[in-house]
């Protein structure tokens, strides 16, 4: 594997670690099985690419994409909290609705960004090659997001969201408006996914209507791989684990697809993902089995 593919894998891994952090918030902290991400990821890409192509500033476009993701999460939460639609179903409804909305935003199945400015080439110093600078900038973005999340979930409001996911009845008895907590958590989760979509579109040369397919699987894979590598209930370790999981996952994918002796090709991506997640799910059990402990 060349340095170029390695840095490419790191770059995509870092972008998907934002997705993974979002998925961690919905699936783990709120215990809300949220498939909206399959729609909010391309939503972020669509909003950012369309705005940049229309001549807007890439930073404004990226912020707008993040907000769009937050709104998508809010609507999913609202369907669940106010209209009492089952969580999984509410997110599926939002996911398919977003497919049409994304086509409307882009006006066509894809919006290329070839010569347009992006947050990456605007910030890039002369001395660094683009494929080196992109992962470098992303490291800072991901770290900043991680630290902000750690801080937020240690505040009174953040604690209320975690309590809602852990024990909603108790949270209500402590005066937490659990409906609002779900809305806030879902907005935050999908905002991160929207941001990831915006960054993905700007590194991959544009947005495409099919770029969201399987986002939730990748996000969950990252969370599961991370948790089996670094099992911890402490939040600041869990967020590290999730980020590491996303990067490790991308490395394995790159390794599998770039190793000629295995003979795998790009179309085997989803199969490799399934195998990898299976391994990540089984390893903790085996580890517990070998150390003689029982797992529930």
């Amino acid at each position: 594997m060349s340095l170029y593919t390695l840095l490419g894998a790191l770059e995509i891994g870092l972008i998907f670690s934002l997705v993974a952090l979002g998925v961690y918030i919905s699936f783990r902290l709120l215990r809300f099985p949220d498939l909206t991400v399959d729609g909010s990821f391309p939503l972020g890409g669509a909003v950012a690419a369309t705005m940049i192509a229309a001549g807007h500033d890439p930073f404004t476009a990226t912020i707008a994409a993040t907000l769009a993701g937050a709104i998508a999460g809010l609507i999913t939460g609202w369907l669940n909290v106010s209209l009492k639609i089952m969580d999984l179903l509410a997110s599926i409804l939002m996911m398919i609705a977003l497919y049409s909305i994304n086509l409307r935003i882009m006006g066509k199945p894809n919006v290329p960004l070839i010569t347009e400015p992006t947050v990456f080439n605007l910030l890039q110093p002369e001395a660094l090659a683009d494929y080196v600078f992109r992962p470098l900038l992303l490291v800072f973005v991901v770290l900043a997001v991680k630290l902000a999340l750690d801080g937020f979930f240690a505040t009174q409001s953040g604690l209320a969201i975690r309590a809602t996911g852990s024990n909603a009845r108790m949270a209500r008895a402590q005066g937490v408006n659990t409906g609002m907590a779900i809305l806030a958590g879902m907005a935050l989760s999908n905002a991160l996914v929207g941001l990831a979509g915006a960054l993905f579109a700007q590194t991959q040369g544009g947005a495409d209507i099919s770029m969201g397919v399987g986002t939730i699987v990748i996000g969950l894979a990252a969370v599961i791989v991370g948790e089996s590598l670094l099992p911890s209930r402490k939040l600041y370790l869990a967020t590290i684990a999730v980020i590491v999981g996303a990067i490790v996952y991308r490395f394995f994918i790159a390794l599998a697809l770039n190793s000629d002796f295995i003979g795998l090709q790009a179309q085997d991506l989803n199969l490799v993902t399934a195998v990898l997640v299976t391994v990540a799910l089984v390893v903790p059990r085996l580890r517990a089995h070998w150390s003689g402990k029982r797992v529930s």
Partner: protein
Amino acid sequence: MLKATDLRLTFNPGTPIETQALRGMSLEIPTGQFVTVIGSNGAGKSTFLNAVSGEQKVDSGTIEIDGIDMTRQPVWGRARHVARVFQDPLAGTCEDLTIEENMALAKMRGERRGFSFAVKPALREEFRAQIATLGLGLENRLSDRIGLLSGGQRQAVSLLMAALQPSRLLLLDEHTAALDPRTAAFVLELTVRIVAEHKLTTMMVTHSMRQALDVGQRTVMLHQGRVVLDVSGKEREGLDVHHLLDMFEKVRGEKIDDDALLLG
């Protein structure tokens, strides 16, 4: 002061399994009084407690706390005035959060939650001092997940949490029923101490007639969704479990066996 007036609630109305859980239930608890509530299975004690906490909406009637109408308030809206300890020791705390995070959550019960850190050093010291009074050695485990504690320890912490923030009413829902006898005695003793210390207006639902007479200043017996017996003061002091049973039979005009009450 709690003032519940003519509460009525029917489950599954118009179906073969229709149950009239509350049939004109009224109860007034003056400020500072500790009331114990007993009754057999299906007498409506849990339904009444849930109605007061807001978990169960009533069909009609009103619930006032210190003159504020709470009847239409959601659970989280009442939390400012009502503290609660659940029957299930696992229900009153968040197992994924640490001991101090659980306490921080309770410290802000009913308050606006902002963006300052939930557990600040000063608050941690306050929690440490509070939890040391339990004598369970938990003061050095504040950053442990509360899920690691035993049911009895979690129930003791729940009680402490209920008193971290002033309340106008403390609801105890058979909070010793799921514990072994020794732990139950410890938690009950702690209850009496905390209620006295903070002069809390308290309603304790219990499955045990012994417990109902031993603690508090007044005992109320429910049957078929309303109050059938209400004893306090001198009359209550001389009472024993069998007196209570006799009085119950007299009031209801029917015989009831002890087990039904004890197990209820």
